[in-house]
């Protein structure tokens, strides 16, 4: 029942997101057509663009058209290159997904082991250092971490390419930029949730049974601690997606975030609108998915097996 409720509220949120992104173009101060084409454009071009964007029609009609076009996966076309926007998104989205996925793997493979380590050494100096570094690192924004990593690994050490997508190793620096921030948050989360579980009775029982310590940690404690971690990963996918906008710009990674920034620079607002919509929808979908996953993954059912 809960899931149906969740999906219903999901639908209203999606509708709201559609309204907000639709309204974006109407928030342009003055005449959007003028802003997009610049002052030198001919009158014929302006009339044509106004017609293309349907800006002559009443707002409600425009929104209706927007929705019916979207339902046919039609985002309109770029003002400057006249390419259908759906093609642009199709060509850029995989790069963003690849980047986000690799960052997630980096984040998980650093964050979880480090969190376990900190929890096992709770209160000792190792724990203090790990916690201090992860707290401070997670406060640093991507537009700081990116240039710093670039300076160290690409400019000074020369191990990795500065930017672009030509080489196979081009993805390493942007993925590290996003992955480090994620790993810092995961470290703290793993540490906290593992510490909570470690004091439970069943862990004492497991130890009393004479199970080896790695067995107790991995088979018993970590399984229970993993649930909050799933939620955090789901929630963090959002900042990962938003982080790609800045990270892709720093490293000239041709994903959807860079497409967004480029479209803003060129005042190609239909493209801007589409990018914002696609990123927001991805985020909402990931959240819904995490939520459903979490509800299905009842820890007590697992422990019975």
């Amino acid at each position, binding site marked *: 029942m809960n899931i149906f409720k969740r999906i219903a*509220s999901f639908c*209203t*949120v*999606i509708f*709201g*997101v559609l*309204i*907000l*992104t639709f309204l*974006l*173009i109407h*928030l*342009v*101060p003055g005449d959007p057509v003028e*802003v997009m084409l610049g002052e030198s454009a001919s009158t014929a071009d302006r009339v044509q663009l106004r017609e293309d964007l349907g800006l002559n029609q009443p707002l409600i009609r425009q929104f209706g058209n927007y929705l019916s076009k979207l339902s046919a996966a039609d985002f309109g076309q770029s003002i400057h290159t006249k390419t259908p926007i759906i093609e642009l998104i199709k060509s850029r989205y995989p790069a963003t997904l690849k980047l986000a996925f690799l960052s997630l793997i980096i984040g998980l493979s650093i964050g979880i082991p480090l969190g376990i380590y900190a929890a096992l050494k709770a209160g000792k100096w190792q724990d203090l250092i790990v916690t201090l570094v992860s707290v*401070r690192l997670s*406060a*640093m*924004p991507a*537009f*700081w971490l990116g*240039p*710093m990593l*670039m*300076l160290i690994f690409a*400019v*000074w050490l020369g191990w990795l390419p*500065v930017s672009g997508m030509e080489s196979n190793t081009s993805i390493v620096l942007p993925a590290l930029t996003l992955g480090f921030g994620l790993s810092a948050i995961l470290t703290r989360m793993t540490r906290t949730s593992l510490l909570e579980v470690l004091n439970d009775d069943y862990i004492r029982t497991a130890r009393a049974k004479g199970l080896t310590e790695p067995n107790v940690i991995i088979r018993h404690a970590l399984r229970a601690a993993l649930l909050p971690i799933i939620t955090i990963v789901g929630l963090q996918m*959002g*900042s990962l*997606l*938003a*982080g790609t*906008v*800045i990270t892709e*710009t*720093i490293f000239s990674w041709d994903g959807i975030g860079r497409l*967004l*920034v480029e479209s*803003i*620079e060129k005042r190609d*607002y239909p493209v*801007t609108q589409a990018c*914002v919509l696609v*990123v*927001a929808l991805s*985020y*909402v979908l990931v959240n819904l998915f995490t939520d459903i996953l979490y509800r299905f993954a009842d820890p007590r059912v697992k422990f019975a097996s």
Partner: protein
Amino acid sequence: MVAVLAGRLLQLSPNQIDLNAILSLPNAHYLLGADDLGRSILARLLRGVEVSFTVAIVVTLVTMTIGVFVGLIAGFFGGKVDRLLMQITDIFLAFPGILLAIAFAAVLGPGLVNLMIALCITGWVSYARLTRGQTLSLRNRQHVQAAESLGASVPRLIIKHILPLLASILVVEATYSLASVMIAEASLSFLGLGIQSPNASWGAMLRDGVRYMLVAPHYVLIVGLSLMSLILAINLGGDYLRDKFDVRTEK
């Protein structure tokens, strides 16, 4: 604050161009070197902090006012009003991170005022959520109910009996939001959407630093290290305030 005061006292000229000093290394005249137009990096960093603080304080005050107002109404009246307002905050929260601020800043056009508008439109949601949650529980406290049964009006109930109890939580939230607004401002300026040249901004300086990284790595390094110290300082300040005011740290 030290940085802002220092900037004022030294009467620096952050916009003065010295063509002989373009991208020069730190020296006696330019303590932290000069940028791509031969302007003093130190002077621009100090001016940038000032601008950034101003933006952060204005945006925090505006978003707090709007958010607290919305939150109080939602929490106090409950029911349909609450559901509608929370549905609206849900929609704003459906945009990850600063994506919505990027979108607003993009369509409004670059500039200081538009940047603040974009940050205000997107920033009130967290205050609304926080206030609403607190108000919901405060609404049923005995002292509020007692005042209500004595015939106190709704504005009086809210201002005299609920708002004072929210103050400490809001102060703590505000210090964190100061930091996050500063980061958001810098992110937008980094993308070229915020503060425009010749005004100084750390985000824009970092972007220029990246652009000239191969010829003048000291530029990006100096701005980066300064940014790191600033963010650490703000966070430590926020932690200190939280320890002082907040009871929630117990958990």
